[in-house]
């Protein structure tokens, strides 16, 4: 559905933030976009939503270029940004002004979510806390019913019960027609929702695989004896490791461990994924 080819970007007088990025995103998935701070996750989402222009490269949505801020592409996607300024209006006014840009916007869904987040239409956005403003945006983004939903650190600023609420809402809206991309550091918050991960490091895509593939090829846990095939191990007490799965039972993917392993043992991991790629 979304195709990105050889995308380059740098801010004025800075080094490359996105250096030859290529990736595909399909419907029916929830992608986790990971990377250390300043590795271009937000920049990529901004380019995809028309907030920044790529220096060069291709970006298409359903085979139509998305690089030129055309209305057709923009009404098919919504970005919940990490930092934002919302107009000093009530939630109801915000909906009236912005809802019309999205052909499948559902007013009912929006106000249901607003109520679920313990907010009300007459609430003045300027007087809400950061977390509450974020909830307004999340509710709005979901109610746009765009086929593409981009979220930059959506759980930042949400309290613990709201995070669980957020996961429930995401589980209820994810379907085969929607492509959801979530950038996050809060791996634990979203681990059960994500089914495909993409890691950006040093301005490159260093890892791009479905969790189904990862759990077919790798085993996560504490190895019984000193096995020599350990790919990556966490220092300290516990010592959780990643091993090639071989004939071992399937284990749940430990995203934090995988992320650390990708940053240090990238070649080994990608070689294993590639050699066993028969699809």
């Amino acid at each position, binding site marked *: 559905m979304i195709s990105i080819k050889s995308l380059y970007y740098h801010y004025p007088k800075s080094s490359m933030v996105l250096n030859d990025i290529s990736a595909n995103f399909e419907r*029916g998935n929830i992608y986790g976009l990971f990377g250390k701070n300043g590795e271009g996750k937000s920049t990529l989402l901004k380019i995809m939503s028309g907030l920044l222009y790529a220096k060069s490269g291709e970006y298409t949505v359903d085979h139509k270029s998305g690089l030129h801020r055309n209305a057709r592409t923009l009404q098919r996607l919504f970005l919940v940004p990490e930092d934002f300024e919302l107009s000093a209006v009530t939630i109801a006014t915000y909906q009236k002004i912005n809802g019309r840009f999205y052909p499948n916007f559902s007013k009912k869904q929006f106000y249901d979510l607003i109520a679920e987040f313990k907010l009300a239409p007459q609430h003045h956005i300027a007087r809400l806390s950061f977390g509450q403003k974020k909830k307004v945006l999340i509710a709005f983004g979901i109610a746009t019913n765009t086929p593409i939903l981009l979220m930059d650190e959506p759980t930042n600023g949400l309290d613990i019960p709201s995070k669980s609420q957020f996961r429930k809402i995401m589980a*209820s809206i994810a379907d085969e027609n929607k492509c959801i991309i979530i950038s996050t550091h809060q791996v634990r918050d979203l681990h059960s929702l994500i089914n495909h991960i993409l890691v950006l490091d040093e301005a490159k895509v260093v890892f791009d695989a479905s969790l189904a593939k990862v759990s077919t090829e790798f085993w996560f846990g504490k190895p019984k004896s000193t096995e020599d095939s350990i790919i990556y191990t966490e220092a300290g007490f516990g010592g959780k490791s990643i091993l090639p799965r071989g004939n071992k039972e399937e284990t749940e993917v430990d995203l934090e461990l995988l992320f650390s392993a990708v940053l240090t043992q990238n070649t080994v991991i990608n070689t294993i994924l590639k050699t066993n790629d028969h699809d």
Partner: protein
Amino acid sequence: MDFDNSKPIYLQIVDFFYENILVRRWQDEERIPSVREVAVMVEVNPNTAIRAFNHLQELEVIYNKRGIGYFVSKDGYAKVLDIKRNEFKEQTLPDVFKQMRLLDVTFEEVKNLYDQHEKE
């Protein structure tokens, strides 16, 4: 739902189904929550929930009535009982035996503790 971080989430959902069936919360031939409802309940990607449903369908613990939903099989309870008994014998007990050897706990001691427990 709190996930154990070593067992695949879909199998943890399967266990959640087993428990509901074993305690008779979900009776044989009774309709169970939909894929979507389960995904929301346990806060997972619907694809993960589907995998759990498929697994249970292959084991014939549940079945799908097209357009209506999923139901516990006619002999769902008996099937789950069988699966969990095997799991107990093949996985749980060997672990207990290993611990007994390691801690030098005799079978007699275990038997006494068991009898005592049953009396309470």
